[in-house]
């Protein structure tokens, strides 16, 4: 069993509108058999934070094109994207670059 992970989520560029207009979310992901990765985090966000129109944030397994992801202030493309394994106290940022964000 992996221990619960406490992480800091930030939403910006209009993406915050999809999560009640709140930019900062300090959340604790419950303990589960395997370690948390970003792919599972997106499922968790969809179930727990997205109040309306989830398709404006997630599409398929990943984020909607046009939404940027930073993990600990680095481009998630450098961190393994969906496969990155979340550590306790990680900082994950989602920035929408879309007008229709």
């Amino acid at each position, binding site marked *: 069993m992996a221990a619960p992970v406490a992480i800091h989520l930030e939403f910006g560029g209009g993406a915050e509108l999809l999560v009640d207009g709140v930019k900062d979310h300090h959340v604790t992901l419950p303990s589960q058999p395997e370690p948390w990765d970003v792919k599972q985090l997106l499922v968790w966000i969809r179930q727990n934070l997205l109040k309306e*129109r989830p398709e404006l944030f997630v599409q398929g397994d990943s984020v909607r094109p046009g939404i940027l992801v930073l993990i600990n202030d680095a*481009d998630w*493309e450098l961190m393994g994207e969906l496969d990155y394994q979340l550590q306790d106290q990680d900082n994950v940022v989602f920035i929408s670059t879309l*007008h*229709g964000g």
Partner: protein
Amino acid sequence: MCQVEEEYHGPLQREELPSVSKQCMKCKEAGAAVVIRAGDAYCRGCFKEYFIHKFRAMLGKNRLIFPGEKVLLAVSGGPSSCSMLSQVQEGLSQNAHKKLRFLPGIVYIDEGGAVGQSVEDRRRTVDQLQAVFRATGFPFLVVPLEQVLDLPSSVVLSAPGAPEWKAGAYKAAVDHFLLSDGSSGVTAQQQQETPPLEVQEAHTHSLQRLLGSARTLTAREELLNTLRQHLLVHTARSAGYSKVMLGDSCTRLAVKLLSSISLGRGAQLAHDTGFSDSRYGDIILVRPMRDYSAKEIAYYNRMFSVPSVFTAGLETKTADKSSIQRLTESFVTKLQADFPSTVSTIYRTSEKLQSCKSLASAGGDRCLLCVCALDTAAENASAFSATLISEQLSQTQSPEQSRPAPEAPPPASQCCSAVGGEACGNRGGGCCSSAEASEPPPLRSLLCYSCQLTIKDLSSEEVLPHYILSEAQRRLRRSQLREEIRDFLLEDEADEG
């Protein structure tokens, strides 16, 4: 000869992400923080340097902004225009040989009324932005979009431009500037604190009625863009600025390029998406952010704490298919995700476009709304005339169009030649409605093809602001007069627009 049997290698494949090293590809020392373009990983420091250099290079390459010139930065509060503002600040703080030497001012157009924001929300946004602007030390103006209702008709006229700059003029201006001790330039400007203009509720309602009269989101967005641009140009003129900097990013321009084509603005593309746009003559619009992708801007703003203020627009939280512009945006961002190099190819196309010089320089008629040279004087065999004919044909078949024409019916032979004998024979008197259609309603005749489409989507032309309607009347009177005295004029083909 065309090759019939082309070889296809199966469906297009998603470009494999190159395995990025975690080291900066530039300095090869620091750890990478951001991937720009496919595979180029930069560290924080090198990314910053790259970003700043690109801004100065863009202005340096084009040599359009002269030392000491007053330049108005159009800041919407969005990431791209706020990034532009920070780059101008950065450029002014550089040491002498790299320093930008123009005099910046800021304008914010408050569009809250157009998108139905409450007065409190608008005030809050303005307060946040004013704090950002005040920190720059540049003079700034906050202009509610409602002001567009009070514009003078001169806005939709192209004023005579500054004399063509000859080769060497830029260098001469730089030398002159250096001699006259330009270092005092920026500090000499006063940051006057003008209280934000009070907006009358009635004005907000008129504006909302105007935008609400558009039956499609596509037309509403086009209308809003046009009104905003008129207000920007007018603000620049009245405050003595000769250039307006717009914050369009490369991603935005790729979207604009493709949606403009879909909207029938092919002839105006060079103006709509190029580095500089001289359609207004004395005021030149400049797009210095056109080399930056939305991603680069978002990362820079995040890493170097560039403040921006999110404001909801017409498109916010709308579905992909709600308008042509939204659909194109979603197409381009998906393209960017799957085939990263394609978007920059689209955008580079826009660099190579040039407006048709013969149209622009002839001093001919310009569109009443977008102020581009009219593209509707096309020859008979053009796609435009084909569109008109098919529109006329389809109109004669729809029952609601068959109301009798108010004018006296033209001679039958002339009437039928427009539609083709068969339809005429079947419909009898209804035929004359086609004669009405072949002669576009007055206002439409003053518009380019694309703006005609926008206006067609309005429930009424009467809601248009006064400055547009009165200029329309003036132009129609003038052309009517010209028509009346035509027989007395000496024919001069070359002079005709």
